[in-house]
């Protein structure tokens, strides 16, 4: 019964990720691409996403800490980040990237970062 309990828990967590808007139907597309011949596809692509995101976030941080801020580079990183998060169905990340890019377009990265501070410290 332990196995069943665990599966149930996982199913609940998965459902809540959709309910809370963290994941969208693109993630379901990924799950549908997984089969017996490729049983680890979702795990592999999500792992790739985490590695890639880490790299991108580091680059974004570096760019944000330099003066003057290179907005074109920043936009480039955000474009990449938005692209990969959209490809795996990470809905919230994708929309945050879109908002950030709008601030960047207005040359206003600092205002955006201040608006993010509550999120950063509660995580």
């Amino acid at each position, binding site marked *: 019964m332990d196995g069943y309990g665990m599966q149930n828990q996982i199913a609940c967590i998965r459902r809540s990720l959709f309910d809370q808007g963290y994941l969208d139907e*693109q993630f379901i597309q990924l799950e549908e*691409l997984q089969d017996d011949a490729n049983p680890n*596809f979702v795990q592999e*692509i999500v792992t790739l*996403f985490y590695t890639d995101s880490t790299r991108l976030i580091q680059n974004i941080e570096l760019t944000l800490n330099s003066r003057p801020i290179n907005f074109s580079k920043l936009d480039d990183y955000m*474009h990449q980040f938005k*692209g990969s998060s*959209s*490809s795996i169905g990470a809905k919230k990340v994708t929309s945050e990237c879109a908002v950030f890019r709008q601030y960047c377009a207005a040359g206003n990265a600092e205002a955006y970062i201040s608006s993010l501070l509550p999120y950063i410290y509660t995580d």
Partner: protein
Amino acid sequence: MGMAIDRDDTKFHVLAVDDSLIDRKLIERLLKTSSFQVTAVDSGSKALEFLGLNNNDADDDEEDEQRDSNTESVSSDEDQDHPDLGLGVNLIITDYCMPGMTGYDLLKKIKKSSSFKDIPVVIMSSENIPSRINRCLEDGAEEFFLKPVQLSDVNKLRPHLMKGRSKDIDSSHKTTSTRLITSGN
């Protein structure tokens, strides 16, 4: 490095071009699920290299004609497109936004090449910009997919490939040497 080629001559061979590792993995899985043979590369120049097209071709229109004809007179298998050898590419699907050579630049180079201009090219982009889409379609792209690409998009590829295959069947009755000469137009 993701250049594994599975030599099944009955499958269509798609060359996928995308600088994003995640998108490459996704498009590869989508294509393989649809029974395509896939080669995935991370840039337009690697794509041209894979096709056997010199990256410097199509930079200068005048030199182009000359280089192409020189290449053909000393033609080796790598420079020619031979679908029946399994290395032949039947369709190219490429991301639009890539550093260096964009998907649009790649499209133009393919369409300028006498050996490869008939290979259908499909462009993918995360950005829905009508002028961009129209320009690609007007300049020879068969389809334009908005990312994230889905199975339903990949299913649209087969008709473009079937068109090419019926052309191949017609020419398959000719001898190899004849084909080398006739493909050099």
